[in-house]
């Protein structure tokens, strides 16, 4: 336990030094946004056992809301941030209320369908600019003082948001509420028989997850000064499932690692391909860059078939086995 907190601190300090170390801050910020998104999703899948296949809806909603709030309504970033998160929270409430009427696969299908509906809304709505998206969102001054146009300032804001949200999720998981969620995931019938109105717990978890996903979306918009449809597509919903799966669902760090890997893959798969091509000489690899979806699909299949615990999960299992051997 104590070692864990220490590890977290070290990691945090490392992140704090990123700009100094000359690592490319925008890239790290992007990873943090997706990591937050994945963590939010994992709160639902990993700790409540609900597979939402429509989380992109929340990412998109807050992304657009923030953009609109700053660009059109002229709010300052922090206020816009709050508005955006609330927006996705409300959407979460609506979709959640519908979806939790069914469980398991149906839940997944319903969330998927609802998010598709949201997608079409964004596509047709005037303020989103359709396929052009919402462009050139000014980052503005945080609390009227800190100029976010400066990547470094923005970086520390994002880092703070990420750390805070991560802490919140940790807190939720280790709270009385989190206890009930755990129980609910392990044995729903028993939890009901102990007098818990599980639907209300599921809904709250859903809304929390939606708001955190929203936070990720809003932050992302600040970083890339634009909100586009791709944030709201079902492919994006699938991507976040994958991030969580790869990293290890039901673990706190898992989604972060998963996000890191997938984002890296998305940006660099071409380079990987080239490298593989040089190394193996297999012609196909050189086109890898043009077939990200195939790679993602493959990872999906492999994870589901052979690697369900995900990286962190497998590591934990491995350590436990080591423990066993020692004792």
């Amino acid at each position, binding site marked *: 336990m104590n070692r864990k907190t220490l590890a977290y601190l070290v990691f945090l300090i490392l992140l704090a030094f990123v700009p100094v170390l000359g690592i490319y801050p925008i890239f790290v910020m992007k990873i943090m946004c997706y990591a937050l998104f994945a963590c939010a999703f994992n709160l639902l899948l990993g700790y409540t056992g609900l597979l939402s296949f429509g989380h992109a809806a929340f990412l998109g909603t807050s992304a657009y809301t923030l953009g609109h709030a700053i660009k059109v309504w002229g709010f300052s970033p922090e206020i816009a941030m709050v508005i955006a998160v609330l927006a996705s929270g409300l959407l979460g409430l609506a979709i959640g209320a519908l979806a939790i009427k069914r469980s398991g696969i149906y839940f997944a299908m319903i969330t998927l369908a609802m998010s598709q509906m949201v997608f079409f809304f964004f596509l047709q709505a005037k303020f989103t600019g359709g396929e052009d998206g919402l462009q050139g969102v000014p980052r503005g001054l945080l609390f009227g003082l800190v100029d976010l146009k400066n990547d470094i300032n923005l970086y520390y804001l994002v880092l703070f948001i990420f750390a805070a949200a991560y802490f919140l999720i940790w807190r939720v998981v280790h709270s009385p509420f*989190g206890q009930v969620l755990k129980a609910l995931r392990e044995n729903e019938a028993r939890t009901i028989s102990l007098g818990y109105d599980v639907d209300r717990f599921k809904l709250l978890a859903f809304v929390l997850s939606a708001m955190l996903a929203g936070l990720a979306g809003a932050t992302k918009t600040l970083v890339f000064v634009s909100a586009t449809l791709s944030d709201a597509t079902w492919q994006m919903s699938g991507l976040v499932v994958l991030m969580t799966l790869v990293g290890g669902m039901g673990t706190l760090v898992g989604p972060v690692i998963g996000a890191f890997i997938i984002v890296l893959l998305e940006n660099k798969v071409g380079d990987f391909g080239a490298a593989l091509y040089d190394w193996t000489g297999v012609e196909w690899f050189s086109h890898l860059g043009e077939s990200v979806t195939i790679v993602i699909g493959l990872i999906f299949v492999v994870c589901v078939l052979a690697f369900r615990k995900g990286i962190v999960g497998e590591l934990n299992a491995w350590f436990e086995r080591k423990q066993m051997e020692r004792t």
Partner: protein
Amino acid sequence: MGDIILQTQGLTKEFRGFVAVNDVALSVKRGHIHALIGPNGAGKTTCFNLLTKFLAPTRGKIHFNGVDITGDRPAQIARRGIIRSFQISAVFPHLTVLENVRIGLQRPTGLSFHFWRSERCLDQLNERARQLLDQVDLGEFADTITGSLPYGRKRALEIATTLAMDPELMLLDEPTQGMGHEDVDRVTQLIKRVSEGRTVLMVEHNMSVISKIADEITVLARGSVLAEGDYASVSRNPLVMEAYMGTTQGELEGAHA
């Protein structure tokens, strides 16, 4: 009427036309240990599922303390003080034994929606939890992960968790099923002990258990009530012997003569 805690009228459940529970009129006296027996597939578990609203009855009414609870949702039933255990052990395997019981204790505290609080605020419940665990002699296992407990212990833990809700009426589905002798005896004693000041309705196959602790017995067969009464009368009822114990003294002789 005051001493009847649970009463059902014409309780019926059909699955796609197949009648699992058929026009059952059950009345459980306050403070009794009431046993529900019957062959496999007689409808005992289904009855439990109806009483706790895990299944919606096709027909019939359920009264608890004179109140009609037929329309309640499962969670409401539980909050009224009707808590059940399951035929196939129902614990939370990845939680520690202590946490299992705490889930039970936690609900009335109203902390359950506080996602911003540390779970340490639940430590106040530990003392009570340990008491309950001691009651079922699980004290020394408090901090082990439940999944690794032997089966018998799990059933005991289940009872402890049920007790944590301080139920007025406990429904136990085959608490001794799949246990070795010594476990059976321990659990039997346990039920006897915890039944003080409560009412217990239990499904049980093991006659020795029933004969030891049941005040009242209802025999189900093919979904309908076959007989009711205390152990002595029920076990002497020829109908019951026919359907359940299989045969009666007299006929045993007849058979080989």
